[in-house]
């Protein structure tokens, strides 16, 4: 009797030794992060280089960044199941896995970041409904549950698991109702992505972050949701491209990537126009009304006006314009350049909305605050990357992640 293989039929994977070696290397990095994590839980946040002026730092940025980059999951679900772009079914599995990694990482980082981790549940139990963080915590947790539900049918497709009739039927039935979960995911994502925008926007004591009138609601909410929907797909494309390079295989057809990139391009362009309007109103109306000139916020060697240019023009308009043109998308170099720039752009946006907010002096007699993360902070931020690599490696090896892989890589 033939035993069912663990690896899906019709695809080729590297040898066990090669895979084990790779996993050992990534696990070593993961363990470094885990060690730092336990050090922080055991000794406290004195293991970081945060201080009373820099209460939000690298972790909160990492949190916001991975949530934005994981936006490819909800947006691809929206496009596939609600708008009806069926071609994207060929990349949605991977987008869901990336989303799952990003959101589980975000929750882990939050658990490391809080001073009293055992009281983490207070945010649900003693919820302040007026706080942006409360809404973020609720929606983030719910959406992570949705992503888990979206990931389960794919896990059930592993040949060994699929052999069990119960799991086979469960997976089949879950596929059938996946549109409902995709819609729920979109609904929840609009809330938590938007609330994350509000986290900085409502800080009326911080003129760098604060927005007024329609620029707080709905603009800050709209900008964060829109940027995640715009740049999340770029991250999905980027990780797909990296996976293709490592596995030395074409995994997704160009037509699928280009469709995803085209939609992303239009999203980026519309987002960056809205962001420009927001920035202009803030720079020339809101900030002067509070006694600040635009250049007051960019008067540090680290945070100079070049950062604003990089975020909006170089990593906003440029990738957007490349991706909306057919020639830009068809040339793999320009496509990948645009995708990388868009990913950097959204990360810069989240960086300035966290770290620059803390750095800018508000009292006239205060200096710019500086901050350099400790090795423990860096290790715990690298931890999700190693964890992500492990999840992707396992998923790619044992699950039929890419529906077009067989067709694109026929085995003789």
């Amino acid at each position: 009797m033939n035993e069912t293989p663990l690896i899906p039929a019709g695809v080729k994977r590297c040898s066990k030794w090669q895979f084990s070696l790779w996993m050992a290397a990534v696990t070593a990095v993961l363990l470094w992060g885990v060690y730092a994590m336990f050090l922080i839980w055991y000794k406290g946040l004195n293991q970081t280089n945060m201080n009373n002026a820099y209460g939000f730092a690298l972790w909160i940025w990492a949190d916001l960044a991975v949530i934005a980059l994981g936006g490819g999951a909800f947006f691809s679900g929206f496009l596939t199941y609600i708008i009806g772009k069926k071609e994207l079914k060929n990349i949605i599995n991977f987008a869901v896995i990336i989303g799952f990694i990003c959101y589980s990482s975000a929750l882990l980082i939050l658990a490391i970041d809080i001073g009293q981790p055992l009281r983490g549940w207070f945010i649900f139990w003693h919820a302040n409904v007026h706080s942006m963080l409360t809404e973020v915590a609720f929606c983030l947790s719910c959406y992570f549950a949705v992503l888990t539900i979206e990931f389960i049918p794919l896990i059930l497709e592993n040949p060994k698991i699929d052999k069990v009739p119960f799991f086979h039927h469960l997976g089949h039935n879950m596929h059938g109702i996946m549109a409902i979960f995709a819609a729920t995911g979109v609904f929840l994502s609009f809330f938590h992505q938007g609330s994350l925008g509000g986290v900085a926007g409502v800080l009326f004591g911080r003129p760098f972050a604060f927005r007024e009138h329609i620029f707080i609601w709905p603009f800050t909410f709209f900008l964060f949701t829109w940027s995640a929907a715009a740049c999340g797909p770029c991250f999905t494309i980027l990780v797909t491209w990296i996976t293709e390079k490592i596995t030395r295989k074409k995994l997704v057809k160009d037509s699928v990537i280009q469709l995803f990139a085209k939609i992303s391009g239009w999203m980026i362009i519309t987002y960056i126009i809205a962001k420009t309007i927001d920035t202009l109103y803030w720079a020339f109306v809101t900030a002067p009304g509070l006694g600040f000139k635009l250049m007051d916020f960019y008067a540090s060697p680290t945070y100079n006006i070049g950062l604003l240019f990089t975020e909006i023009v170089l990593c906003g308009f440029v990738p957007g314009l490349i991706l909306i043109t057919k020639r830009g998308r068809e040339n793999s170099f320009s496509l990948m350049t645009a995708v990388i720039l868009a990913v950097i752009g959204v990360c810069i946006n989240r960086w300035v909305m966290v770290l620059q907010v803390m750095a800018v002096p508000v009292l006239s007699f205060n200096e710019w605050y500086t901050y350099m993360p400790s090795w423990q902070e860096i290790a715990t931020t690298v931890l999700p990357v190693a964890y992500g690599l492990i999840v992707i490696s396992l998923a790619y090896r044992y699950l039929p992640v890419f529906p077009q892989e067989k067709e694109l890589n026929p085995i003789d």
Partner: protein
Amino acid sequence: MKEKNNHTKRFGMVIDLDKCTGCGSCMVACYAENNVPFRVDETNKLDSLSWLVVHKITNGKPYPNTEICYLPMPCMQCDGIGKHGHSPCVSVCPAVATDYDHETGIVSQIYTRCFGCRYCMAACPYHARKFNWWDPVWPADMKKYLSPNVSPRMRGVVEKCSFCFHRYQQAKDKAFYEKREELYEDEYQTACAEACPTGAITFGDLNNKNHAVYKLKKDPRAFRLLERLHTNPKVYYLTSKSWVRRAGDNYLANEEPGKIKQEMVHGH
């Protein structure tokens, strides 16, 4: 017969910067009164737990025109936008670990509720909120001298000036015992106000016409820090120096503090 409490209190402070010598007595008194922990090495002031910090500011001019001003900064106990208790920190706390007391106007911090997300610290433009980065450790015998009226805080939570709220509670208890609802002005005073050797710090009910702070806040020399942000602090400062007044907020080159204040008052 009980004396009637006929108005809502807004406890506040007026600090006369012309009188402050920067001696730091207020800081020391605050540490002792509120069981504020300290470490052997306190050189990094950004890690310190001082509930009240005395800043040294200068007019930026070279000698012999240099002028110095010492500016003590406790928690500003902001009333927030619209003076409804929507202070920068209270509205953002996800677990209601900090609250605005509408009876006194004091912004509280519930240490056992706080789980250390530090969103309130990010929200406060005055850096009044401090985080317990370490477990509190006192020198051996010093534990015996800790105040029994103030609970020490644990690692991983935020703390801040409470306007010595425990003293208010004690004064209320005394008044209740004496069948009074109203407190005498000197019955509830903060430790810093009592410790100031030059009498620069005056504390009381900003709503009570009989309290010194009521009149002082209307002094032409009075201003508050960062008024333009609409945080509505209950800590007022007095200064006769225009450069100090200007340092209290942010102004564009062509703006005058007095004119901006008038515009704010009249809602322009």
